């Protein structure tokens, strides 16, 4: 925590001066940032609750207690995260407000 200048935004009830970096929100930037809407664990088709387009979704499979694998084969429609190609596999997902194609 050597950097003492700039803007830091914590989650609710966290101390902006002492919270470790992983639990801060993004520092202010002039570039478009990913805006995270929700996250969870699923093993079936799951609603993502974005209603105005197809959101960016990141997904990871649990390999063991410490290791996760990126999953490039999760399909996303305008309403759901589909498990067509990964039937029965439990995975973490994170949904971003950013659209897969932005104007």
């Amino acid at each position, binding site marked *: 925590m050597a950097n003492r200048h700039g*803007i830091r*935004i914590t*989650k609710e009830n966290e101390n902006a001066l002492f919270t470790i*970096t*992983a639990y*801060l*929100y*993004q*520092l*202010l*930037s*002039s*570039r*478009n*940032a*990913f*805006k*995270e*809407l929700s*996250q969870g*664990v699923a093993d079936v088709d799951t609603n993502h609750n974005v209603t*105005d*387009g197809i959101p960016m979704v*990141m997904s*990871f499979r649990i*390999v063991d207690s*410490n*290791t*996760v*694998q*990126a*999953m*490039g*084969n999760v399909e996303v429609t305008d309403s759901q995260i589909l498990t067509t190609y990964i039937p029965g596999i439990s995975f*973490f997902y*994170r949904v971003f*407000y950013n*659209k897969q194609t*932005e104007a």
Partner: protein
Amino acid sequence: MAQRRGIRVSKQNKNVLTCGYNDLIFTSEFPALKIHAQGSGEVTFTGHGGTATDTVIIPHNVGISPMFFAFTEWYEHIGALVQEKQEGYKMFSFGISAGEFTVSKYLAFTDPTALYLDYSVLNVAEDPFSLKYIYYIFEDPVLE
């Protein structure tokens, strides 16, 4: 859009007070990804005899299993025992199928210490051949 405190940055010519989330570059209403490290590299397979395997290890020492994006050049299955290198990059992890069988695997894993790009590329005629990769490792854990 009831919340009236926090920080918002809108796109050019958009009203930061009234525009929708798609027109906000940043809003403190939602968490955003924080990049810990980013980079690129190239892995070369020599003397592979048609079965090219290697694991690229990229230490990150984030301390938790972090979210990441990783992309790689790849070979597509064209015909029996024939693979052809494609233009551009594809996002990990994926397999290349030939009929019912997966002939190549491009897998990316992470644990609290490193990112692992695991290549198993079969039936490539060129020897040696190389594949470039790009990665972004975030401070954010996979699941909080």
